[in-house]
């Protein structure tokens, strides 16, 4: 029994006192499916109270606005499940975007451009994984170093300025659409499916969770911990690379300054979705919901014209409430 649990057990009375007001149905819903219920309530609330929230075009816009965070969150979930963290994703997005823009323009081939972008992402990811797995360096620091380094590479590659793309078909990547949704949205959906399946239905995914729970035990149980870590970080790099290339195509330029602070938003979404920062716990639906909650709140604030300064407060408060809620749920569960 850990102190965390101790703390929960001791804090439970405070919570239950404040619970009196909630109706029984809501309480049950919260109990059973937790965050999903919160999201549904939130969504219904926003649909009713925020004009124009529940319109086709707004939902499409909402989806599009979360593609970057959502896509990268799927692999960040794997990294966190492993008990590690990757702070370099935003830099990877910028770097791979710039690389794709430069390579597309110099080679004239979209294929080469895209491939170089994704390969650059994979290389950075694999390097991160290598440093973490081979030398046992704390991933927070290893990827913090990578975050600086790779951002530097993005600036150097681009000369500091946005890179223009001379091959028009490159833009199709970001804007081609199918069934009303564009490629970036489909990519996000695809990533959710792939990594959901990977996490839950394959030995690989279970090994990731096991390693996050107890790396030594996993090693003794025949998991190749080192290869696993390198693979997961490399996947993170690939996905961040894909996201970076799509962003570049969507925005029409390779911008080395883009997405600063993205890593924290992605990690927040994962944690909101119930992924534990100490490893071993992850759920793809949780992450999906986490991403959607963040996206909906941000979108609603836009629709409601909330002043920026207050947006900071709202984001901070939402994050805090979400984790408090999560703790409360766990406390209840362990006390029933």
């Amino acid at each position, binding site marked *: 029994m850990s102190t965390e649990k101790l703390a929960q057990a001791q804090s439970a009375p405070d919570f239950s006192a404040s619970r009196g007001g909630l109706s029984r149905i809501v309480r049950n819903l919260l109990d059973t499916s937790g965050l999903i219920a919160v999201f549904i309530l939130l969504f219904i609330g926003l649909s009713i109270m925020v004009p124009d929230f529940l319109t086709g075009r707004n939902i499409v816009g909402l989806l599009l606005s979360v593609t970057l965070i959502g896509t990268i969150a799927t692999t960040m979930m794997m990294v966190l499940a492993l008990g590690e963290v990757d702070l370099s994703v935003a830099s990877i997005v910028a770097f791979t975007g710039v690389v794709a823009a430069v390579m597309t323009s110099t080679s004239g081939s979209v294929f080469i451009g895209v491939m170089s972008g994704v390969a650059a992402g994979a290389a950075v990811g694999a390097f991160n994984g290598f440093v973490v797995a081979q030398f046992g360096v704390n991933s927070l620091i290893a990827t913090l170093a990578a975050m600086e380094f790779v951002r530097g590479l993005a600036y150097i590659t681009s000369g500091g300025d946005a890179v223009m793309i001379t091959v028009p078909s490159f833009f199709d990547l970001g804007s081609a659409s199918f069934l009303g949704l564009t490629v970036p949205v489909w990519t996000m959906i695809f990533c959710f499916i792939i990594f959901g399946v990977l996490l839950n239905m*394959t*030995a690989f995914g279970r090994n990731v969770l096991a390693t996050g729970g*107890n790396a030594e035990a*996993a090693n003794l*149980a025949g998991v190749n911990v080192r290869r696993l870590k390198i693979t997961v970080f490399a996947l993170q790099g690939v996905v961040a690379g894909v996201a970076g290339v799509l962003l570049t195509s969507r925005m029409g330029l390779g911008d080395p300054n883009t997405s600063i602070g993205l890593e924290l938003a992605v990690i927040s979404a994962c944690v909101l979705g119930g992924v534990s920062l100490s490893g071993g716990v992850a759920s793809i639906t949780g992450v999906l919901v986490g991403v959607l909650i963040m996206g909906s709140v941000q979108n609603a604030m836009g629709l409601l014209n909330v002043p920026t300064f207050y947006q900071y407060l709202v984001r901070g408060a939402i994050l805090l409430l979400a984790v408090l809620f999560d703790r409360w749920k766990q406390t209840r569960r362990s006390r029933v």
Partner: protein
Amino acid sequence: MSDPYLRFDDISVEFPGVRALDHVSFGANAGEVHALMGENGAGKSTLLKVLSGVNRVTSGALWIDGERHVFANEREALDQGIAIIYQELTLSPNLSVAENLLLGQLPVRKGFVDRRALRETALGVLRDLGEEGIDPATRVRDLSIGQQQMIEIGRALLRNARIIAFDEPTSSLSVQEIRNLKRIVKRLRDEGKVVLYVTHRMDEVFEMCDAITVFRDGQHISTHPTLEHIDHDVLVSEMVGREIEDVYGYRERQHGPVQLEVKGLKGPGIAEPASFDVRQGEVFGLFGLVGAGRSELLRLVCGAEKAEAGSVRFKGRDGLFTSPREAIQSGIAMCPEDRKTQGIFAIASVGDNINISCRRFFSRWKLFRNTARETRNARDYIRRLRIKTPGPETRIGTLSGGNQQKTILARWLAEDIDVFVMDEPTRGIDVGARRDIYSLLYDLAEQGKSVVVISSDLAEVSSICDRIGVMRDGRVIDVVHRDQATPERLLGLALPA
């Protein structure tokens, strides 16, 4: 008879899906060593955690020296003079031995830690523990597990407690350390303290304890104020609710050709190149005192540690495994000795803990898990090993120590491979369950598999093994056949010359 000094009055504790203690009432006197016994998951540790303020009760209270108490946290219990040595270690690895001994009550002078007093006090208690060899400035992480356990005991002694409880203290102690522990327990009794003592070892009960209370499934079964008219069989049947004639139940069988041959293996902790072999259908024991190098040797065999020299011959190949993964894939699996750090995935379910490795046999197209098969497999072993859990989805971290151990064993028993290496497999496991486990080991041997068992339990190795290798100071001293393996002979080989 006067009121007991410590009385548990109608204590109940509930966890999700589990009633860990069910209206338990009994008392323990000052100046007695009171044994608490019962199957794994009976509620012994839970009871001690009620005493120490960690677990909250749903009914009942404690009476100490005529006063009623319901502790809300650990500090309240400490203030009442209660000290507990828990089943799992609770030390801060990077602090010194001295600081760990006095954690929570560091000596302070003028606002600063009094380093001299700290060292003096630590030296005093280390002497008391018979661990004069340990420098109080050593970091705890550099001690052996047994030594760490002794530090825990020392910390409890320094509390000057009126009530001291031990939760399976001997399961990781060396012979010498056990001797010191027994001396300390006697002294505490003579000083008039209440000593509660949880153990699965019958010999300890009869040697050290004055009274005994037995639990089963969270219920109080009996309290015997004296052990005069109690014998082994009575206790066992009170504990497990059925008769067990011979725990070991050895079964004779034929042995095949050599399956695994270890030749001249050298590595850290192994003083002399070590060699031995194991036959098909054989249960091979590895006996020695704690720290003799048994774990090290088998870690080298299974690729968990890098060997400096030697080779392992297995299935026609001759070489070394470079990782546990490689060993498992070739057909050798090792169940590690320290379940907390090497075994369990605390936040994962019992099912996942069982299936982590063997699921490769059930996978579809070598990629997707077969969850139905996994669940069936988990349920199968929960039944066969009588793992006390609400179901395969329960988090293993909420299970009792012994049931966690059974789950880890199930992980390896479920492997379809040729050589099973088990490091202290029955540590912390109750009598009834041990019988089931031995029987499963014989089953494996009868199917032509080989089993290697490391054990510090003399009776266990000499009763269940076909041959026994004895190690001392990092050397394989001798390999003794079952017929010659008297406890005296084994101990004689294992003890320092």
